[in-house]
C-alpha cells in the first residue's frame, strides 16, 4: 500500500537512515545511563532521550521509564513559545523542569539543545532524567505538599550552556538548591554529555546524507510507522468504551480521587478522552498535561503497537483530550510530586476499557503504584544519618492463557530493582525478618492474578521517621471476564500487638527501636471465571504455596483430596 507520490527516496537509504537515527538515540541513552551519577538514573533508568527534527517531531527516541514515552518535544515547543523560534543558537544547551510545562515533577530535569548544520537548524537533541534532590521541603519526595513551591527549585526554559561555554552562575543555581551537590553536578554533566552526543550524531547523519535526503527519509519513515499503526487501529471494531477508577486519596485530603477514561474508536482513529477526570487535588497527585498524554500513549502502545518503533509517525491515529484545571492537566500552583500515581491507574483503566475489543492483548489490573517506604534515622554503627527509600513490587494481572506475574515492579516504572536484603542491612539500621510471596493475594481467575509481597522491617536504631506512600486500597487490582480482584495493600506497625497501627500514607511518623513495620503489596486481577480454572493448576498453586487450601476451596471451589 505504498503511496507512490511520497517515494522521493529509495527504500535502502530510508532504512539506513532509520537505523542510524534509532542507533543515535540509543547511543544517547547509553551515554546518559553510563555517565549518570545517581542510581535513580543508571540503575532504575529513570530517564529518556529523543532526537527531534527542526519541527520538533521525533527522529528517534529511547526510554528507560515507560511513561517518558514521546513527550520530550514539549520542552522544545515551550521554549519557542517563551522566546520565539529565533532563540536557538549553535552550542547552546537549555534546562527546564516546570511540571506544568514539561508534565512530570520538579525532580525531572529536561536538558536539550539545537543542532545546526551550515547555519541551518536541522533538529534537537533532548533528554530527561530524575535528580535525587531539588530542594523540596523534605528530603526525597514530600508526600503532603500542598503547592509546587514546597516541592523545590522550579525552572522555566533556562540556558545552562551558552555558545558552548558553561554558565557558571546557572550551574551554581542548579547545584546550590538541592541537598546533594555532588550528584547534581554529576547528573547535570551526564545530561549535557548526552545532549552533545546526540547533537554530534545528528549533525554527522545530516552531513553524510544531506538535509534534503534526511528529510525525505524522515517523511517516509514517519509514513511507514503511521501506516502500521492505522492498520492496527482500523482492525478494531468502532465504538465507545469506558472505565473509571480511583486512587485512595491525594495524600493530604481523605477523599478518593477519580480518573475517568473514555476511548472512542472510529475507523483508523482512536481518541482517549480524560476530560471527565476529577479536578486538581489538594495533595501532590496532580499531573501536567504533557505527561498525562504520554501515559495515555503508553496504554495505547501496550495494546496497539508494542513492537513498533516510536518516531514522529507514531501515535498519529491517537488524540488525547484533557481538561485544563483537572487532575491530569494541572495548573499552578498544584503540587505534582506524586504525579505518576493516577497514571498507573490510567493505564490499567485504558486496558480495561478496551478489554472487550482486544481480549487476547488485555490483562487484569496490576497492583497499581510504586508503594514507597522511607525510613530516616541515624545508623548507630557509624553514627551517620541514613535514608532508606524504596518502592515495593507487587502482583500483575492474569491474561488469556497465562497467570499474572508475581512480585513485579509497577507499570510506570520498568528497570527498577528491589533493594537486596544484604545491601539494605549493611547500609541502613534495619533488620528484614521476611521478604516473600504474599499467599492468596493474587486475584482468583481462570488465569490467576500474580501475588504481591510481604516485607517485614525491624528498626535497629533508637528512633527514626517513617514515610509511606501505599495506594489502591479503594480499587485493588480488578479482574477481567469474571476474574476477581487481588488483595489490597496494607502496612501495619507492630502487627498483632496491643499497640498495632495500620496506615498507608504517612509522613515522618515516629518509630522506635524494635518496632516492626510489615508492608504487604496487592496482587493482580484474575482473568476469566475462577471456577473454570484447571484443577491441576489449583493443585500446583497449593503445592507451591501461592494459594492456601481454604482459599482454593472458597474462590475456586477446589476440594483437596
Amino acid at each position, binding site marked *: 500500500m505504498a*503511496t507512490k507520490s511520497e517515494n522521493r527516496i529509495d527504500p535502502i537509504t*530510508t532504512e539506513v537512515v532509520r537505523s542510524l537515527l534509532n542507533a543515535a538515540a540509543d547511543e544517547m541513552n*547509553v551515554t546518559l545511563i553510563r555517565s549518570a551519577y545517581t*542510581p535513580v538514573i543508571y540503575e532504575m533508568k529513570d530517564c529518556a532521550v529523543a532526537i527531534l527534527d527542526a519541527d520538533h517531531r521525533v527522529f528517534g527516541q529511547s526510554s528507560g521509564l515507560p511513561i517518558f514515552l514521546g513527550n520530550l518535544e514539549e520542552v522544545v515547543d515551550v521554549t519557542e513559545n517563551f522566546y520565539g523560534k529565533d532563540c536557538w543558537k549553535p552550542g547552546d544547551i537549555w534546562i527546564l523542569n516546570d511540571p506544568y510545562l514539561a508534565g512530570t515533577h520538579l525532580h525531572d530535569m529536561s536538558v536539550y539543545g539545537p543542532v545546526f548544520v551550515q547555519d541551518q537548524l536541522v533538529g534537537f537533541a533532548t533528554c530527561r532524567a530524575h535528580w535525587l534532590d531539588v530542594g523540596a521541603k523534605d528530603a526525597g519526595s514530600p508526600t503532603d505538599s500542598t503547592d509546587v513551591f514546597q516541592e523545590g527549585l522550579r525552572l522555566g526554559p533556562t540556558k545552562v550552556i551558552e555558545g558552548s561555554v558553561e554558565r557558571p552562575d546557572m550551574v551554581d543555581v542548579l547545584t546550590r538548591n538541592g541537598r546533594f551537590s555532588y550528584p547534581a553536578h554529576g547528573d547535570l554533566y551526564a545530561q549535557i554529555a548526552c545532549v552533545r552526543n546526540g547533537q554530534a550524531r545528528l549533525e554527522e547523519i545530516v552531513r553524510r546524507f544531506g538535509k534534503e535526503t534526511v528529510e525525505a527519509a524522515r517523511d517516509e519513515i514517519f509514513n511507514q510507522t503511521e501506516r502500521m499503526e492505522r492498520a492496527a487501529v482500523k482492525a478494531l471494531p468502532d465504538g465507545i468504551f469506558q472505565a473509571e477508577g480511583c486512587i485512595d486519596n491525594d495524600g493530604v485530603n481523605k477523599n478518593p480521587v477519580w480518573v475517568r477514561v473514555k476511548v472512542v474508536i472510529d475507523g483508523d482513529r482512536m481518541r482517549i478522552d480524560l476530560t471527565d477526570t476529577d479536578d486538581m487535588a489538594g495533595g501532590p497527585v496532580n499531573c501536567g498535561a504533557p505527561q498525562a498524554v504520554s501515559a495515555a500513549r503508553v496504554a495505547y502502545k501496550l495494546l496497539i503497537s508494542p513492537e513498533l518503533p516510536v518516531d514522529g509517525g507514531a501515535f498519529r491515529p491517537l488524540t488525547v483530550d484533557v481538561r485544563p484545571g483537572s487532575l491530569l492537566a494541572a495548573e499552578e500552583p498544584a503540587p505534582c510530586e506524586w504525579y505518576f500515581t493516577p497514571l498507573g491507574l490510567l493505564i490499567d483503566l485504558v486496558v480495561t476499557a478496551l478489554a472487550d475489543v482486544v481480549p487476547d492483548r488485555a490483562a487484569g489490573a496490576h497492583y497499581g503504584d510504586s508503594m514507597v517506604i522511607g525510613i530516616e534515622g541515624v545508623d548507630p554503627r557509624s553514627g551517620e544519618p541514613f535514608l532508606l527509600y524504596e518502592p515495593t513490587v507487587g502482583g500483575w494481572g492474569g491474561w488469556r492463557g497465562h497467570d499474572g506475574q508475581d512480585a513485579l515492579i509497577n507499570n510506570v516504572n*520498568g*528497570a527498577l530493582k528491589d533493594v*537486596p536484603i544484604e545491601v539494605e542491612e549493611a547500609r541502613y539500621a534495619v533488620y528484614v525478618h521476611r521478604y516473600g510471596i504474599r499467599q492468596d493475594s493474587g486475584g482468583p481467575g481462570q488465569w490467576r492474578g500474580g501475588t504481591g*509481597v510481604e516485607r517485614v522491617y525491624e528498626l535497629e536504631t533508637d528512633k527514626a521517621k517513617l514515610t509511606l506512600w501505599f495506594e489502591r486500597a479503594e480499587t485493588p487490582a480488578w479482574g477481567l471476564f469474571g476474574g476477581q480482584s487481588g488483595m489490597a495493600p496494607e502496612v501495619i506497625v507492630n502487627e498483632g500487638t496491643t499497640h498495632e497501627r495500620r496506615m498507608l500514607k504517612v509522613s515522618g511518623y515516629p518509630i522506635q527501636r524494635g518496632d516492626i513495620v510489615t508492608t504487604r503489596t496487592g496482587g493482580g486481577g484474575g482473568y476469566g471465571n475462577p471456577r473454570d480454572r484447571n484443577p491441576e493448576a489449583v493443585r500446583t498453586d497449593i503445592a507451591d504455596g501461592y494459594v492456601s487450601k481454604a482459599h482454593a476451596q472458597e474462590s475456586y471451589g477446589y476440594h483437596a483430596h
Partner: protein
Amino acid sequence: MNKYRVSADIGGTFTDVVAINQETGRIAVGKASTTPRDLTQGILAGLSRVVENPETIDFLVHGTTQGLNAFLERRGEKVLLLASEGAGDVYYIARGDRRDLYQLHYRKPEPLVRRRDIVEIRERLNAQGGIRIALDEAGVRIAARRVREEGFGAVAIAFLFSYVNPVHELRAAEILQDELGEHFPVTLSHQIANEWREYERTSSSVIDAYIAPSVQRYLNRLTAELHRQNVVAPLHIMQSNGGIISAAAATNSSLQTLLSGPVGGTMGGVSLARDNGLQNLICIDMGGTSFDVSLVMNQSPDIETETYLEGFPILLPVVKIHTVGAGGGSVAYEEAGGLRVGPRSAGAEPGPACYARGGLEPTVTDANLLLGRIDPDWFAGGTLSLDRNLASQAMEGLGHQLGLDTMQLAEGIGRIVNTKMAQAIRAITVEKGIEPRDYALLAYGGAGPMHACFLAEELGIARVIVPKNPGAFSAWGMLQTDMRQDFAQAFYTPLDRANPMEMADLLETMAREGSAAVAAQGATTQAISHRFSTDMRYRGQEYTLTIAIESLDEITRTDFKEVLVNRFHRAHLARFGHNNPGAPTELVALRVAAIGEVGRIPPAYESEAEGQGEIEYRDMTFNQKTLSGRVIRRAYLRSDTRISGPALVLEDTATTVIPPGWELRLDQLGAMDITRL
C-alpha cells in the same frame, strides 16, 4: 619425536581441532561433526585428524558447551535450594524488574527450581557476619531426608551474608554430606561468588548446582576416553574468564565452564595483539544467525564480573561477548512500504534461498552471492554449493514490491545489515567510553571476514585483520591462554576508613589460595603470578569499577590511598566521561586472579603452497558498479604479496572480501592485514 599442543572447540555444527607442533610452531587444523548426544565422539574424531600418534599430545585444552547445553535445553539436575529463614522467595521475586517496558504480558525467566523445592532453614547472620540465629541443624537433616526420598540430584545453599561469614553454609554442607555421602554435589553460594546481593548469588549457585553433575559426568567420561586412546597429556578446560584450569579442578567449578565457548576467539585476539604490538582490537565473529562482538583493550580481554544468561544473573568473571541478531541467514522483507533486514533468520533449515533447501525469502547470504562476494562452489569448505538462480529469484519478488532491481536490492541488503552491525559495535564501544576509530577490527568465523571492511568503513576504522584459519580461530585462541583462577572477597568500607593492613592480609590469603590452586594443576611456582584489584565507586553509586592494585607492597606505602583514589578518578573519567575528584569513595570487594603461565610456542609462518596459483578474475559489484576482481586462494599468499581491492581471498572455512579502496598484505605471522588506502 615431535610433540603437540592441541585444542578442541565444540561448536553447534562442527568441532574444531587445532594442533601446534611444539618444535616448529606449525599449525594443523581439523574439523569433525559435533556429536550432540555424546560430545566426546566428535572430539576424538577431530583429534585423530590432526595428530597421528595420541602419545605425542603434550598439552590438551578443551572448550566445552556441555554445561551451557544442559542449561539451555533444561536438561540439568533436579535441585533442592536451601535459603535463610524469611528469604526463600528471593529467587522467585528475582528483584522484580521488567526488562521489556511495553509488554503487558511480561514474563520473568522461568526458575530452575520449583517454589516447593526451596527450603527455608532457620538461621541468620547480620551484616557484620555475627550470628543472630544459630543454624537449625535438625532442619538441615530433614532437608537431607527429602533429598534422598524425592530423588534430588544436587543441593544449592545460599544463606544471607555468607559472603561475610560462611560458617552456616559450611556446617550445613557438612551435615548434608554426612547424610548423603561426601560425593553428593552441594553448591555453596559463598564459594560460587563471595559477593553481596543475595538474588544474584542464589541465581549463580542454582545454575551451578543445575549443571554441575552433567559437566562432571562429561569430564570424567572424556578423561577416561582419552586415556583409553593413549592420550597421556592432562586435559585442561577453557573458562569463561579467559583462562584455563585442569579438568580435575573444573569438576569442582562447573559454572566457570559455562560461557567458555566464544571466549577462545577473544583470547586469540589478545595473543594476536601482543604479537603485533597492537593495543586495542574489536573482535567480530559472524556466523549464520548471530554476530558476536568482543573487545581487547590494552592487550587484555574485557572482563566483567557479572553477566546475564536468558535473564538470570550470574556473578562470574566473564570475557564480555555481545551477541547481535544478524548473520548470513538474516531475512530481508517488506513492511509498510519499507525494506527491513533481520533480526529474523532463515537459520540452517531452510536457510538462504541459494541453499536450495526450500527457502524462498532473500537473505544476506543470497545478497553476498549475487554481489560476487562468495564463491558458490566453495561455500563452507566445499560442503555446500550455492544456487545463484534461486538467490536471484528470491530477490526479484521483493525488489518488485519495492521498485528496486535485483542488484540494487542485493547491495541494499548488504548496506542495511552492515549499518546495523556497525551500530551495534558503536553502542558497545560507547558504553565503554571507547572511540572505535582508535581500534583495529579483527574478523573471524565463517562470515566475519566477508563483512569486515564494510563495517570498518562505517565505523571509520582503517585497519582490518583476518587471522590464519579464521574458521578455527577460537580453538587456536585456547592454546594462547594461561591458567587462571579468580578469587573475590566482599570488602565494604569507605576508603578513608579502610585499613590497608587488613586489605593486604585478605589479598595475601586469597593469593596463597590461588597459588595453591594453580600449583595443584601443574604450574611451577616461578610461573605463577597474581593480579590484585579492588571494586570501587563513589559513595551512593551502585556500579563499581575494578581498579588494579599493582602489588601487595603498594598497599603498605604511605600514599597508597591517594594513589588508589587517583587511579579510580582517572578510570571513571575514561569510562564515563567525567569524574568527581574530592567526592567520597568506597571499596566494595577485593579481587585476586592467580595466573599460571603455561608457556607459548613462538609463532611461525611459512606459506603453504608453492607458486601463485591460477590467476582468476570474477565479476563483483560495489556501489552498483560491476568490476572484475581478483580471486586468490589464501595458501598462495606470500609475505611480499600486495593485493588491492576488489578481490576475494578464499580458504576452507571463510571468504575475505577486499572492497575497492582497501589493500591486503600479510603480516610476519601470516595474518591478513587489510588497510584503507
